[in-house]
């Protein structure tokens, strides 16, 4: 069975290490916060200017002045710090954020990523995505293996305008876990009951199956 969105998030949560500062993008990445392993302390950064993002507020306690980068109402946690957007991206650029998780429309087998624009169709802007992918050392993409038409989103070359080049380190999809290596996508884990053949069929870029490929443990 392919992974659910929650399971993708759960798998990514295993990448968290104690003491990490983490930036979670909109969508599946946001769900990662629900699966932080026991004993692992991480601080969530929201690039509009917050360290220590907490859960959504209780109904009626939401505050228009306290939102995350997805414009959702949130809370702070004890030990939070608030700052302006220049400092927020400053700490990202300076490599102080250990892990960035974000969604993508396309990833290429050299680590290029496209997630901000569909020419003549969707113009939303890159927001902080270009800054994040240019600066972060460890970038994990959370996405579906294929688009709604069933076409692979793991490509030899992105067809959409790029967000960043050679920056993605790992991809977790509904079908498996892939690392970017010089030879392309290295499949290190597959979703339970998803065959390597299915992964091969749904990966359009260069694909290498790890010798010790194993089922995603979630």
């Amino acid at each position, binding site marked *: 069975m392919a992974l659910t969105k929650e399971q993708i998030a759960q798998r990514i949560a295993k990448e968290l290490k104690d003491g990490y500062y983490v930036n979670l993008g909109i969508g599946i990445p946001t769900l990662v916060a629900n699966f932080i392993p026991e004993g692992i302390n991480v601080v969530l950064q929201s690039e509009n200017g917050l360290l220590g993002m907490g859960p959504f507020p*209780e109904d009626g306690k939401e505050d228009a002045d306290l939102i995350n980068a997805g414009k959702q109402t949130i809370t702070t946690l004890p030990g939070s710090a608030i700052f302006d957007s*220049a400092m927020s991206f400053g700490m990202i650029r300076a490599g102080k954020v250990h892990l960035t998780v974000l969604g993508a429309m396309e990833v290429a087998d050299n680590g290029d990523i496209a997630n901000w624009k569909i020419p003549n169709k969707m113009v939303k*802007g890159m*927001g902080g995505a270009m800054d994040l992918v240019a600066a972060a050392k460890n970038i994990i993409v959370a996405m579906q293996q294929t688009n709604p038409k069933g076409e692979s989103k793991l490509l030899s070359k992105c067809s959409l305008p790029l967000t960043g080049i050679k920056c993605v380190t790992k991809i977790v999809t509904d079908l498996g876990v892939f690392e970017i290596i010089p030879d392309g996508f290295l499949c290190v884990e597959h979703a339970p009951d998803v065959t390597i053949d299915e992964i091969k069929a749904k990966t359009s870029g260069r694909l290498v199956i790890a010798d010790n490929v194993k089922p995603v443990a979630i």
Partner: protein
Amino acid sequence: MSINKVVANADEAIQDIQDGATVMFGGFGLCGIPENCIAAMVKKGTTNLTCISNNAGVNDFGVGLMLHKKQVKKMIASYVGENTEFERQLLSGELEVQLIPQGTLATRCLIAGYGIPFVPVLAGVGTEVAEGKETVVRNGKKYLIEEAFEADFAIVKAWKGDTMGNLIFKDTARNFNPLMAMAGKTTIAEVEELVNPGQLNPNMIHTPGIYVHRIFQGTNYEKRIEHKTVRKTN
């Protein structure tokens, strides 16, 4: 030493903003936006504006109100996904748009306020954002040269301010506000609470008054929430 920067209201604060001006608006989404001044700009009907703002508001709130009235010639922003009227004007060619990375936007404000003419950044290298831009290689990495903004006016919203222009922001309504406050040739601040000098702790000022030219206490803040998300409670 009390330099008084108080103006009566938003109308007075923006009265000399002319057609064709470049104006920055603080805020992130609808959070921390200068609602009073935007309303006054819409009322005044100034046109041909170049607006610098992280977002373009929504169709019927924030900077979106000025877009709706076609007051904006050019929009410089990082994310405009919440505004369908924006998307329509852009795709139809009515609106000139420059989309730039959010951190670059923030930093171009910062360096304007710090008297630094340009800054090298990695964001956008290898993408269409890099097109036509000067680059420099440092330690084997390619950087884009990004220029400091030059804005005729910056309009920001703070939580508290004093008559000398010192500002304090609340929570993530801070965002771009202190940066744009530093970057305007003329900076206008609207605040929820205007106090006398001495009522704010000098250690806790986010924007020193030297960067602020006009200040007034705003009224009737709607503070619209864009995406209300709440916890499931049992």
